[in-house]
């Protein structure tokens, strides 16, 4: 097997099993923190397989939009996963401007989720959709500030090259790396619907965001949505890993570090969920806005480095 095939195989296994393990690690950390044993690491995989074997029930008010929405969301997130550098340090799809493609692929997934929820005609799901749209809309400007700053500072136009330069050991990368990683962690929590923003374990429809949008989904549709949610966490975890691994490391060591950092981000999410209650609905925009503050910090640092003579 040549190098390319090996890399592709590792990436395929990562994208197939990673999301289940990611959610499994989060739940295991939460369980251990409470002194419980916790369910198996691959419980989500068993759930998804079980759901795929079942039939699907559709409400009479739904149309084809409801059926196709989970598939569109899954496809969009899968493509965004192909753009982000994987365990080998290279992306499968790499072209100029793919960082914009990444942002809009994630937005398309969100849009599909929202129209799917609106299509059911349920007021609960409309409420969840409106919350999802208003809270995560604050993530996008912050992401844009961070990434376009990195594009300007590095002079490259695709994820793979930008992230390689961020990993470099220049003073700029180290100083800017702190707020970049902080911003990405907030993006992980907001986009992945994890605790300070949304509680995946909540049982009350009025306090749900992501969970209330999928109340009407069942069978394969629900399985696909669950897998997509895990995949989204995994993709942003990969982004964090790619940003934080120093330049000069390659091959198996890179892959090892990559998996270690993705797993560490899952542990971090678990710890955050164990230590914090979700914030009040009215305080969620404030939490997500912190990401914009981090982005402004990145912008200012880069501006000073490029024009202000800081080395």
């Amino acid at each position, binding site marked *: 097997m040549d190098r390319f095939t090996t890399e592709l195989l590792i990436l395929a296994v990562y994208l197939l099993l990673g999301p289940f393990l990611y959610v499994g690690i989060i739940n295991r950390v939460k369980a251990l923190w409470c002194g419980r044993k916790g369910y198996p690491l691959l419980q989500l995989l068993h759930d998804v397989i079980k759901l795929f074997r079942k039939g699907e029930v559709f409400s009479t008010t739904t149309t084809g939009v409801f059926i196709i929405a989970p598939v569109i969301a899954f496809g969009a997130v899968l493509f965004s996963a192909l753009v982000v550098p994987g365990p080998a340090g290279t992306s499968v799809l790499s072209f100029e401007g793919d960082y914009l493609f990444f942002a809009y692929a994630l937005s398309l997934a969100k849009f599909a989720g929202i129209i799917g929820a609106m299509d059911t005609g349920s007021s609960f799901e409309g409420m969840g959709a409106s919350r999802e749209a208003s809270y995560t809309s604050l993530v996008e400007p912050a992401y844009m500030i961070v990434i376009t700053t990195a594009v300007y500072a590095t002079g490259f136009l695709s994820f793979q090259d930008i992230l390689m330069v961020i990993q470099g050991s220049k*003073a700029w990368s180290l100083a800017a790396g702190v707020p970049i990683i902080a911003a990405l962690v907030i993006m992980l929590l907001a986009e992945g619907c994890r605790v300070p923003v949304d509680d995946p374990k909540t049982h009350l429809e009025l306090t749900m965001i992501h969970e209330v949008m999928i109340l009407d989904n069942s069978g394969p549709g629900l399985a696909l949505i669950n897998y997509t949610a895990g995949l989204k966490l995994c993709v942003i975890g990969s982004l964090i890993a790619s940003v934080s691994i120093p330049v000069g490391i390659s091959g198996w060591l890179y892959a090892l570090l990559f998996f270690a950092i993705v797993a560490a981000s899952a542990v971090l999410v678990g710890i955050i969920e164990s230590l914090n209650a979700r914030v009040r609905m009215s305080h969620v*925009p404030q939490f997500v806005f912190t990401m914009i*503050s981090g982005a*402004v*910090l990145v912008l*200012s640092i880069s*501006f*000073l480095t490029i024009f*202000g003579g*800081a080395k």
Partner: protein
Amino acid sequence: MIADIAVVLFGVTLLYVSTAGMIESYIKMLTVQGLLLFVIALFSLTEYNVGGIIFVAAETLLLKAIIIPLFLRKTVRENNVVREIEPYITNFHSILIETLILGAGFAAAYFAATSGGGVKPFSFGIAVSSVLTGLFIIISRKKLLTHVMGYMVIENGIFLMSLAVAAELPVLVSLGVSMDILIGVLLAGIFINRIRSAFDNQDIDQLTRLKD
């Protein structure tokens, strides 16, 4: 390089201070700021002499990170201060303003750095933001104790600025700053105690009743 990371982390503590909801978080953040200032000072020194390092350690580690937080905790405990921060404006507006302050601080650093004079831009930008953040905390929070903490954020900013402007630590400036902090906190403590004996709580809303 390590100093740069510490400076950026100092900026992150400013963001945290502007949104934190409990007095305990403020005290913790002041401790963290003291530790970060020690790291920054240690890595910014151009020449190492034992006296200078001992002095910096005493000022940042001992005073800023241990004695003052202990004193503040004691004040909170003995005066039964309400544990929440009680701001005048919502946290969302706080973080909005804090973001603008960070931007403004870095803009100031840009002009300072491009006009020459050997200013360190990162430290200078965060120092200016820190001073402005302290002022912002003082004008936007109700309790007297949080005013004292805002004052201490300003002091930390001035300490950072003394590191940013001159390459080596000007001992006299630091001495003045650290004395300022100690006297300020002690005075404020006495002041808070007197207010407490005069009014039932230390809310400065009560001060509007004062007439001459």
